[in-house]
């Protein structure tokens, strides 16, 4: 009986940590596989993840819900990312949302105009753990430092 109670408490602690206070991450990518990979990985790491296929969908989503961070790929679809970036920075309500640009291809480099405050470029060749560290630090700097 005692172990059942302990199990339930453990489960509730875990369920609570899974459901509450989860930062929202908006993933913008045209590939369903990349979206799903990020969805599963970030969900495992404690994020509440939304996914959209392009910048226009992202802008629509932003009118409903404010994520703590937006994630897109810099190495592909530069025009799409530039469109997203300009949409973000042209709206006062969205201007503060940090943008993380990752690159899968080792050769990919970010465009110069994105190298500014609130935009982080993370090559995945440095490791997905580094990408997740940057993500946590971006969303909650105090937690990342602790």
């Amino acid at each position: 009986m005692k172990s059942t109670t302990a199990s339930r408490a453990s489960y509730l602690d875990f369920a609570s940590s899974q459901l509450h206070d989860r930062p929202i991450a908006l993933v913008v990518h045209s590939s369903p596989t990349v979206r799903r990979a990020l969805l599963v990985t970030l969900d495992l790491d404690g994020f509440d993840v939304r996914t959209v296929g392009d910048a226009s969908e992202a802008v629509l989503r932003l009118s409903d819900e404010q994520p703590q961070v937006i994630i897109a790929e810099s190495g592909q679809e530069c025009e799409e990312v530039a469109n997203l970036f300009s949409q973000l920075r042209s709206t006062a309500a969205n201007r503060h949302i940090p943008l993380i640009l990752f690159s899968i291809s080792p050769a990919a480099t970010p465009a110069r105009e994105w190298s500014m405050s609130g935009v982080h470029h993370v090559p995945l060749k440095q490791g997905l753990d580094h990408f997740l560290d940057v993500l946590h630090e971006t969303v909650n700097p105090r937690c990342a430092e602790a």
Partner: protein
Amino acid sequence: MNATEHRSPAISKRPLDRVTQLLLVQFLDDVLDALELWQSVEVTDTSWVDAVWSRRVAAWAGVELPLEVKRAHDAWSRHAALLSWQHEIVEALLSQPGVAVSDNASAGHRRSQRCISPGSQSLR
């Protein structure tokens, strides 16, 4: 190598309660899913598994990754080690007398029967 020798220290030293076992099976299924998805877009790094495990599971349940998983650094061997560990946990669940394993755990186990291979096609 028999089942006892292969069993991870985390499982053999401290029996896990059934709820924790069920949650681990589901969590491992998602980890395996993510590894396969990243592999399909040619991202073979698995370092994130240690980081996520440390933040989300070790901190919650005190369950460390087995040594076999920690020592496996390439995507294939790490996937195999995680899948093997998931099998152990499911076997332990099934061996509990009078306990019916939930459909979710069985489904998770079945989902993970698929394996990635070096020749897998990119789904991107």
